[in-house]
């Protein structure tokens, strides 16, 4: 029996699906074809490997963004001579015990949480310990709600943080100003009535 599984999926569909941006009304037809098409399964695997690899590598190839502290230091070299006097006063203030706070621990890392797990080449979401975090979830496949609750627990189940969050600009975002300590975490998303909707693995190095 020759079964008609329809036309093959397009590159743009694979890309959007891999990135979690495929419009919700196209997810079902996409996945239905995928269930029965070996060829498109291979294409999706390749696209996911590509998207993940580009995401891992591209930060290394970007020109390093200067931190605020470095920018200030660079500018100091261009300042006039009286700047030396200002610096002396600042030093005196420091000696007198007036603390000038040091800059925050680098720029905020945006972490996109996906439900993909276990495929070769795909990694659980990761971040660096202590770095400010912005944890983002695409609510496209969820039942729309004015508010969700995000909870972060350690691998032992011990809660670390939780917050009620409202979707904004098509994303559910939880910001953690001081980041997380190294370890394995799970991020859970609940609806307003406390029903668990999603759970994401998250590794902090």
């Amino acid at each position: 029996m020759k079964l008609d599984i329809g036309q093959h999926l397009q590159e743009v569909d694979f890309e959007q699906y891999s990135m979690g941006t495929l419009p919700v009304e196209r997810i079902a037809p996409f996945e239905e074809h995928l269930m029965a098409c070996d060829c498109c399964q291979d294409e999706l695997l390749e696209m996911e490997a590509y998207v993940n690899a580009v995401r891992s590598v591209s930060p290394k190839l970007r020109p390093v963004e200067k931190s605020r502290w470095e920018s200030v230091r660079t500018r100091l070299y261009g300042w006039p001579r009286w700047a030396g006097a200002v610096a002396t006063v600042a030093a005196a203030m420091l000696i007198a015990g007036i603390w000038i706070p040091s800059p925050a621990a680098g720029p905020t890392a945006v972490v996109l949480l996906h439900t993909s797990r276990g495929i070769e080449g795909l990694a659980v979401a990761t971040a660096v310990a202590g770095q400010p975090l912005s944890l983002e979830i695409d609510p496209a496949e969820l039942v729309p709600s004015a508010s969700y609750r995000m909870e972060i627990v350690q691998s032992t189940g011990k809660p670390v943080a939780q917050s009620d969050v409202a979707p904004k600009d098509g994303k559910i975002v939880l910001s953690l100003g001081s980041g997380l300590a190294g370890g394995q975490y799970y991020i859970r998303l609940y609806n307003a009535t406390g029903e668990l909707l999603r759970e994401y693995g998250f590794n902090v190095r």
Partner: protein
Amino acid sequence: MSPTLSTIKSSDTEVKPAIDGQNWLALVENIRSGELGGMEELYRVFSRGVRYYLCRQLGPQDLDDRVHDTFLIVVQAIRRDELREPERLMGFVRTVVRRQVAAQIDRAVQNRREQADMEATVLVSDRRDSPEEAAISREHEKMAESVLRSVSGRDREILTRFYLMEQSQEEICEEMNLSETQFRLLKSRAKARFGELGRKKLARRRFLEKVG
């Protein structure tokens, strides 16, 4: 209650089922009447896809059991005549698989909660990549690095904005002064190059395996 499917509607367009329902109708009929050929055909068509979806969502552990359970549910539903739209068999299989995934996640969350309550020294599974997976990831990263280094700094910036920073196509095209076609071509070429490198590596590995 068996899962049922309905035609998916967006706000202004109706998305038609992507398949000709007649073939599926015949397959469902075969399974319903207990023909072994029908079961074999069902397994042939869906086993890889179901395995793929389950692995993607839940990882490789207990995969064979999960695939088996999924087929049992599908076949039993068909035999009990619970499939309301036989011509939409692909959608039905997808629904069953999605429910399997949701149930498994619920179980995992429940287990972790119970274990955490019992004692603080409970064993936690190591979620790091296996050595093979880590090696594959590294290889993919090398290939992506090679692709990104082969394009201009501007093109690299465009790809980074799209894939890493998830800026929209419109936003990038406007800020980087690009046409939609230029943007699409750049992405498509970079991806094709990545695939090409992967295939070359695979061919080289197969050759070495043969001669080695």
